[in-house]
């Protein structure tokens, strides 16, 4: 997966989880939970969304790596 593909995927999953949030305004390095006001259920739904799109299992101890768009891109592009 290229960085651009990953970025597109992340934004599309975020949009499903938080349809009312303005995802384009979120900076690459910003903490998603703060920037988008995600609670733990939203965040879980986000991880489930990434899992469903990529097939990655994403163990819970990897969650901190998914805290920003930047982090998610790095995680998804380096996986497999």
């Amino acid at each position, binding site marked *: 997966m290229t960085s651009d593909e990953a970025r597109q995927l992340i934004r599309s999953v975020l949009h499903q*989880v*938080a*349809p*009312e*949030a303005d995802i384009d305004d979120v900076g690459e390095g910003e903490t998603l*939970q703060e920037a*988008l*006001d995600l*609670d*733990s*259920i*939203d965040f*879980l*739904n986000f*991880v*489930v969304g990434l*899992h*469903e799109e990529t097939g990655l*299992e*994403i*163990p*819970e101890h990897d969650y901190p790596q998914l805290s920003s768009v930047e982090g998610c891109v790095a995680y998804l592009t380096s996986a497999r």
Partner: protein
Amino acid sequence: MGDFTMPSLGADMEAGTVSQWLVKPGDEVQRGDVIAVVETEKSTIEVEIFESGTIDELLVHEGERVPVGAVLAHVISRAPRAVATTTSPSSVTNAVPPAAAITDTDRVTVATTVTTPTPATPHPAVLSPVVRHLAERLGVDLVTLPGSGPGGAVTRHDVEQAARRTDDEARVRTRAAERKPKSKRKVAAPPQPVHRVASSPLARRRAAELGVDLSALRGTGPHGSVIERDVQRARAPAPVEQAIPAEAEDRQAAMRRAIGALMARSKREIPHYYLSTTIDLTAAMAWLTQANVERPVTARLVLPVLLLKATACAVERVPEMNGFLIDGTFHPSEAVHIGVAVSLRTGGVIAPAIHNTARLSLDEMMTALRDLVGRARTGILRSSEMSDPTITVTNLGELGVEAVFGVIYPPQVALVGFGRVTEQPWAHDGMLGVRQCVTATLSADHRVSDGHRGARFLAEIDRLLQEPEKL
């Protein structure tokens, strides 16, 4: 024949807009079927029917805004009916009037008094447009007519009765309308306002000038005829008939007002007492981490699931926390339906119920919670979820606060709050260590319980959370 009425989807709701009908006359419906979509200030809600039968007639058009209690449809019941209202939440015991009945105690009487006609008082806010049209057509004066519908609302039946009593000619017309052949009624669309309206010449002239549809007006002249004043008033829409504000900002403002009104009522009427305790969550967090290692991502649990389950089980042992206080009488609820406070990113908060919370396994609860939060965000909830929470839980910990002292959501009698999970120095088994802790708070109604029982309740939550594997 039963009336399907606009349900109260929370104590702060006064009116709703029928945005979509999912059934048509002649359709068979089962208890629990979603038959309409209603919009309120807060969200879009799928409204379930609490009676099995056949839809006879739809009385409100899509897009029409009507007050709580207004009749939306007539239903031919399959089973004999006991009560005049069909909107009781399914799982609350029959003794408990639905939250529907207590939107505004000044104006609406509770469901238990529904069968007694209320004294003749003006009740413009609890009239369906269809009833108004009928009254207008039959020349019945609505102001002096006692209503037998929910909350003393004047029903179609009341108007017909009144017309029969007073006017032979009206009786003939009503019966002609009512006794249409069955086959024809099954295909009948919602009644169209094609009838002629009694109106004054001045009103007609004014209506033509202003482009007002006379047939849509409620006349206040003699025998319900439309007079000039009615036409003038129609230009400035009455508050209850306004369409839901389309602009997001207006909707937010409406939601803020609705929350404000309800919370003001809570603070005015409920003698709150507040308790707080710190609970050691180390065992619960360790159990959760371990459980999630073995689970695929789609089946993982979050801490709120444990908190909700523990609260629900504790409620079963301290029933004074669970139910509704209506007109000074506490109606405990046998079932536990925890309302989960979900804050909306666009502003505002809603607290729809997870039904039978204490009976769900953690996995079922997780599924229910994910589904509920997802739907609260996208704005599609079900009527039963909105109308029957028996106690509310709010979890503001993720925003970083240590404790939340909540305002009780009337007519409920308790609210449990959980704050942020923090590491704290903690004496345990004679040793000082660092433990993960959460502050649990209780806001409860002093008219129903006192601090001693409240303390027992929080202690029970604590005890249950120490053995997460048993939840």
